């Protein structure tokens, strides 16, 4: 599936086609944003409800481009030692002792010794450094996942790296990417990402897909589910999202649900199978209660009558 230069794509449609080949069906807005990110070599910032497929965009992009995926999962307190590089202190210490034991240390002055200790082989490369290391072949996709979980200090630091795609390790020198990686940043919006970072990025809010696209997504991702089942599942999911749940199901959940139903051999929605598999779709006890109160049977019924085989 690899192409020679993904950055030479000519249009958003081409991007949409390539992502679809990787089993991801983007809407036009997302395809345009991805196209622009590739063409303008800018990071892409994706926000949206949990489960709409933010992370999956990076996975599919990586498969398409063929340069591999480098993932940096952000969390509270993440710092440069975990994100960029760290020295392997334990190995340095061992090396030092070995040099002493063999008497090699005695014949070297301090500067030589320290040069040897800060050799690249003691450098532990973390995701950000790996992403900008020069590579032969297509560039990697760097996924900075859930950036809103990291602290603001980390964001400032990320901004610096995303601005010039280079990292300086004082003891070794500067690492710079000849070809910058494709960068995808995701956020769940538990807090606002800093404006300075947003200005560097192209922004896209991923929405729940409309029914037709969701049907297509289910067909693509769950080939064992029949056409009728896929349409009914998408229809029922859309009505369930309208109810006002704590956690409206995302595409990820609908796919799981369709898979569960297909596994039970369902060809159309049947009330008892729906009840049995609803746990794939709804993850709160209160939501199950609410769906039951809102007459699950009629939702199923409506989905069935609107989408006859």
């Amino acid at each position, binding site marked *: 599936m690899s192409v020679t230069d993904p950055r030479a794509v000519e249009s958003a449609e081409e991007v949409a086609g390539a992502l679809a080949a990787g089993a991801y069906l983007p809407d036009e807005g997302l395809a345009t944003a991805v196209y622009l990110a590739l063409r303008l070599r800018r990071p892409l*910032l994706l926000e949206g409800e949990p489960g709409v497929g933010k992370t999956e965009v990076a996975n599919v992009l990586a498969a398409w481009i063929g340069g591999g995926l480098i993932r940096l999962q952000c969390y509270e307190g993440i710092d440069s030692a975990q994100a960029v590089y760290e020295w392997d202190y334990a190995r340095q210490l061992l090396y030092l002792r070995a040099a002493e034991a063999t008497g090699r240390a005695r014949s070297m002055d301090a500067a030589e010794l320290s040069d040897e200790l800060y050799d690249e082989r003691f450098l532990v490369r973390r995701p950000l450094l790996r992403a900008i290391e020069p590579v032969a072949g297509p560039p990697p996709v760097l996924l900075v996942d859930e950036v809103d979980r990291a602290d603001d200090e980390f964001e400032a630091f990320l901004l610096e790296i995303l601005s010039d795609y280079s990292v300086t390790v004082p003891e070794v020198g500067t690492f710079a990417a000849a070809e910058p990686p494709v960068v995808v940043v995701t956020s769940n919006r538990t807090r606002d990402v800093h404006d300075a970072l947003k200005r560097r990025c192209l922004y896209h809010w991923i929405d729940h897909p409309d029914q037709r696209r969701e049907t297509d997504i289910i067909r693509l991702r769950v080939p064992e589910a029949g056409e009728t089942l896929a349409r009914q599942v998408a229809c029922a999911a859309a009505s369930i999202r309208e109810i006002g749940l704590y956690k409206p199901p995302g595409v990820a959940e609908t796919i799981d649900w369709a898979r569960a139903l297909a596994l039970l051999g369902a060809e159309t929605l049947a009330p008892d199978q729906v009840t049995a598999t609803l746990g794939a779709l709804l993850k709160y006890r209160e939501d199950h209660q609410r769906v039951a109160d809102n007459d699950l049977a009629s939702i199923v019924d409506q989905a069935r009558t609107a989408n006859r085989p």
Partner: protein
Amino acid sequence: MTSAAPPGSEPRPAASALVPPSAPADPGRRPGAASAGQPEAVAVGFVASLRAAGLEVSLLSSMLYAEALCAVGVARADGVYWAGRAALVHRPEDFDLYDAVFRAYWTGTPGLAVRSTPAAVPVTVELDDPDADDGGDGDRDRNDGERVAVRYSPAETLAGKDFADYSDDELDEARRLMERICQQGPMRPSRRHRAVRAARGRPDVRRTVRAALRAGGEPVRLCRRAPSTRPRRLVLLLDVSGSMEPYARALLRFVQAAVAGRGRVEAFALGTRLTRLTRELSSRDPDRALRAAAEAVLDWSGGTRLGAGLGRFNDEWGCRGMARGAVAVILSDGWDRGEPAEMAEQMQRLSRVAHRVVWVNPLKATPGYQPLARGMAAALPHVDRFVEGHNLDSLERLAALITEDGR
């Protein structure tokens, strides 16, 4: 600016019949080709319209937009629409505004809903003489212009005074005192480590090796590190309904002081709708911040649907992560016209994710007060701390409580 919910798949401007006013369609549509001059001119004009409508667009973003236009070409409306949204808009709240400006600019549709630009507010500087200060202050809650009074007003007299009896300049004075109160905040253990001298904590290999190198390769001293602390997030929810009117203005100043005073504070106004005020209040200039907040809240002194407002907060912000592990402070008298069951349910959700839930009720100080308001009674079982908040003294105690509760 009404809700954080993304606009659904609302109809976008139709792809047909879009004629860019200043750039004729380029049938060849060569993305990124030499037609660079045109998209730039288009970009500048469109960005100016967005700015006029009240959207903040930085120079960097508009340059990115011009590049994006070159890449997608200007022949297809959909491409132009999405390129602009990706390059210029950074928050789902602004999508509606973008759509309106887009429609007006590219199709010439009139009737564009322009976000109201702040009108100049007259500021009167009063140099009144101290004898006459109890005179006609009857217009204190009509804001026909900000009043800045310059006079002596000792802090002690304010400390115990009920906010409902404040004059405008006393509010101003109080804000300065609040700033001092809000310097601290709740702390919690962090995943970051700091170096410690004591024999507790985990070995710090990095520092040990560095020290060993200085000592000619001999690890003489074992360095250690231990977890440090970080500010805990503080979420302030201020009730701005009619019954809170005497207190809302003073408490808004408290909220502003908290937001500007330290990091990791989020502020919301609860009324008939939920308004996020963090951005508006974070300006260092308190007058600007308060004015921006006053404009953002569209339902001052309206009705209350506290339960529904809390529900919206939980759905869009709180349970997603903002309230997780945070100290949530609700500043309200507990009058709620919604269903008590809804209130109880939403408070329970909040208390499940938050570290502590503090309810500040200005009426609590009233002699003989009983939490009988239906909303208040429904909420209380899920509240960790129930405190008063009618004067500066009580707010100072509140700040101390928040700091202490964070641990």
